[in-house]
């Protein structure tokens, strides 16, 4: 038999662990955030248009824990050609969305752009070309690794295994499962000058539109942006839409 030239103490794995290691800090903050949302009653929606098997694997980790005694958590894999249409009717404000796929995945980008308007906390697991930092609340990104290699050699699996493990560590700290108040004296999105991203449900005839803002319906003034169509994303400040975000942008 020909000896395997790859066998040596210094042999290389297909996945570069030096590239995985920096994801640890974001794994920690994502786990804290997920545990808090679960504690508040969230459902976790898992999507992975290019790797449905990974999406299913993420969901089964949370629903049926590998360690006896760990609590089952509501996670659902959604495999639907019309991801936006399916999730729009199913999600509730405060839910979680975990997407797995590379930064060129238009379906994921389009969904996560709506996370704020739908009131979702978002996690994006991927590798290779980095999406903008604003693309998700928590980016678990393996820089410099071919996403196909991360997908097939166990890199992604390791990341969502760790995410599950860390979420359950957080559950051992009940005092930290309470979300800190969103509105403090220093920072408050609602009262500040910051714009909010909303999704149009339907346009009215009086230069207003019914929109979803953080998962709740409200009416905004659309005089400045023209007549929007359902699904459009608007940047709203103090009840007035100031910019229509081009579909396909970030």
């Amino acid at each position, binding site marked *: *038999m020909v000896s395997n030239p790859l066998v040596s103490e210094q042999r290389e794995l297909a996945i570069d662990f030096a590239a995985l290691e920096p994801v640890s*800090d974001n794994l*920690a903050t994502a786990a804290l955030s997920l545990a808090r949302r679960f504690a508040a009653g969230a459902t976790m929606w898992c999507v992975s248009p290019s790797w449905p098997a990974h999406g299913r694997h993420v969901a089964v980790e949370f629903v049926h824990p590998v360690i006896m005694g760990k609590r089952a958590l509501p996670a659902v894999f959604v495999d639907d050609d019309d991801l936006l249409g399916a999730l729009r009717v199913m999600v509730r404000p405060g839910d979680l969305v975990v997407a797995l796929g590379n930064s060129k995945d238009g379906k994921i980008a389009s969904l996560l752009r709506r996370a704020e308007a739908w009131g979702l906390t978002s996690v994006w697991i991927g590798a290779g070309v980095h999406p903008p930092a604003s693309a998700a609340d928590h980016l678990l990104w393996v820089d410099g690794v071919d996403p196909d290699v991360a997908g*097939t050699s166990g890199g992604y699996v390791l990341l969502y*295994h760790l995410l599950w493990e860390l979420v359950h560590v957080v559950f051992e*700290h009940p005092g930290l499962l309470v979300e800190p108040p969103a509105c403090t004296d220093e920072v408050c999105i609602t009262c500040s000058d910051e714009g909010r991203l909303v999704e149009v449900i339907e346009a009215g005839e009086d230069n207003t539109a019914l929109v979803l803002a953080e998962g709740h319906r409200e009416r905004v003034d659309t005089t400045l942006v023209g007549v929007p169509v359902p699904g459009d994303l608007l940047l709203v400040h103090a009840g007035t839409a100031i910019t229509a975000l081009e579909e396909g942008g970030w």
Partner: protein
Amino acid sequence: MTPEPTNFLYPFIDSEERDSTALLVDLAESARGKMAQSRELQLSTLSRCADVVETLATEMAARFARGGRLYTFGNGGSATDAEMTAEMFRHPISGRPLPAWPLVEDRAVLTALANDVGFELVFSRQLIAHARPDDIAMGLSTSGNSNNVMHAFAEAKHRGLLTIGLAGYNGGAMADNDKVDYCLVVRSDSVHRIQEAQDALVFELWSVIQRHLATPPLTDHRSMEGSSL
């Protein structure tokens, strides 16, 4: 991440914990530690299994060259790993696409079999319908004991297939089993670390098979004749 051993004396300490700074540091440190464990386990597993992987890849390449197919199966996370394995062979990131499919994919077939004949037969019944002697059956089970996977091996062996088991712990029922031609064991008792090392093993196996198919050894010329590959 084990709590302070004296914490149980003061349960109010945890419930009144409000500052997450220390926890975040611990979580990130825990993630780094587990990554290091995963890496070490993957390296030691690949090294220990290198000779077996080489021999197995040769046999699999020969079967693929004769027109054989690969069937993959498992339960839960191992079912999705079985799906990923089939995906890797069918739609390779490089090299030659090879016929492979996961026996966990069709919910109509799975539920019909589970409902009518029992869950322990959901894979073996599919092999009865599909399998030919040149085919390959690969079952994944972290315990090495999954009932339906073991039934599938028995059926596959009976039909002349090459049978491959991926297991964890000490190999469970797959170890030293005459129905399992090749048993690749990841020696760990963590289900997650086992699955990660199994993924690395399968990726390695796929790589070596691709190498074999790219440069068939001279002695194999006859078996390549008439192949559609």
